[in-house]
């Protein structure tokens, strides 16, 4: 079970949101991922400039994929024009999604409402650093 968070180019997200979502889904499907949930956080101000962008639209995706697919996924996301930045994190225990940001429903076709499965006690860090490389550089 993986969790991906994307910052999508704001200008493109406003004008061609459906295309942007489809683009991301296509990349995921191409690599044999099964999308469980897609959630739009909406437009937010970035804490600092990322590739010249001051604002961005956040998109959260939960998906299942083979671990071997992750490096190619990560590279595809990096090459994408829509995506300013992405983070993929392994998460065995997907909780009820964030109450932080009021959630606007993503495009109806996008949401695959799969119930969250209860996972027994998990020791220590359940999130394994899939993106160790990325975070270490930080």
């Amino acid at each position, binding site marked *: 079970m993986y969790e991906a*968070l994307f*910052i999508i180019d704001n200008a493109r997200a406003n004008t061609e949101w459906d295309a942007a979502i489809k683009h991301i889904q296509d990349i995921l499907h191409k690599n044999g991922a099964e999308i469980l949930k897609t959630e739009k956080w909406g437009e937010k101000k*970035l*804490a*600092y400039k*990322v590739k010249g962008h001051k604002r*961005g639209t956040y998109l*959260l995706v939960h998906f299942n994929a083979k671990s071997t697919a992750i490096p190619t996924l990560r590279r595809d996301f990096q090459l994408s024009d829509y995506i300013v*930045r992405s*983070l993929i*994190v392994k998460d065995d*225990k997907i*909780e009820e999604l*964030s109450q*932080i940001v009021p959630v606007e429903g993503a495009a109806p076709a996008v949401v695959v409402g799969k119930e969250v499965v209860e996972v027994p006690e*998990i020791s*220590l*860090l*359940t*999130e394994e*650093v899939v*993106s160790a490389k*990325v*975070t270490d550089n*930080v």
Partner: protein
Amino acid sequence: MSKKQFNKTSKCRFCRMGADDIDYKDTQNLQKLTTSQGKLFSRKRSGNCARHQHSVKLSIKRARFMALLPFVA
């Protein structure tokens, strides 16, 4: 004279909440564990146990990477 006694029985804030791990998306709570400059609070300052301090560190660094929290404010 009356130095504030450190209560050894008290647990860290996440232990008290019974939190397993800390979500990097929860920026409102993570922000409380950073200085106004955006630096991480020390373990002594935040009162976290080793396990949760590790988790906080990782979460804040992830949040910074995704521009949810500043590197330098």
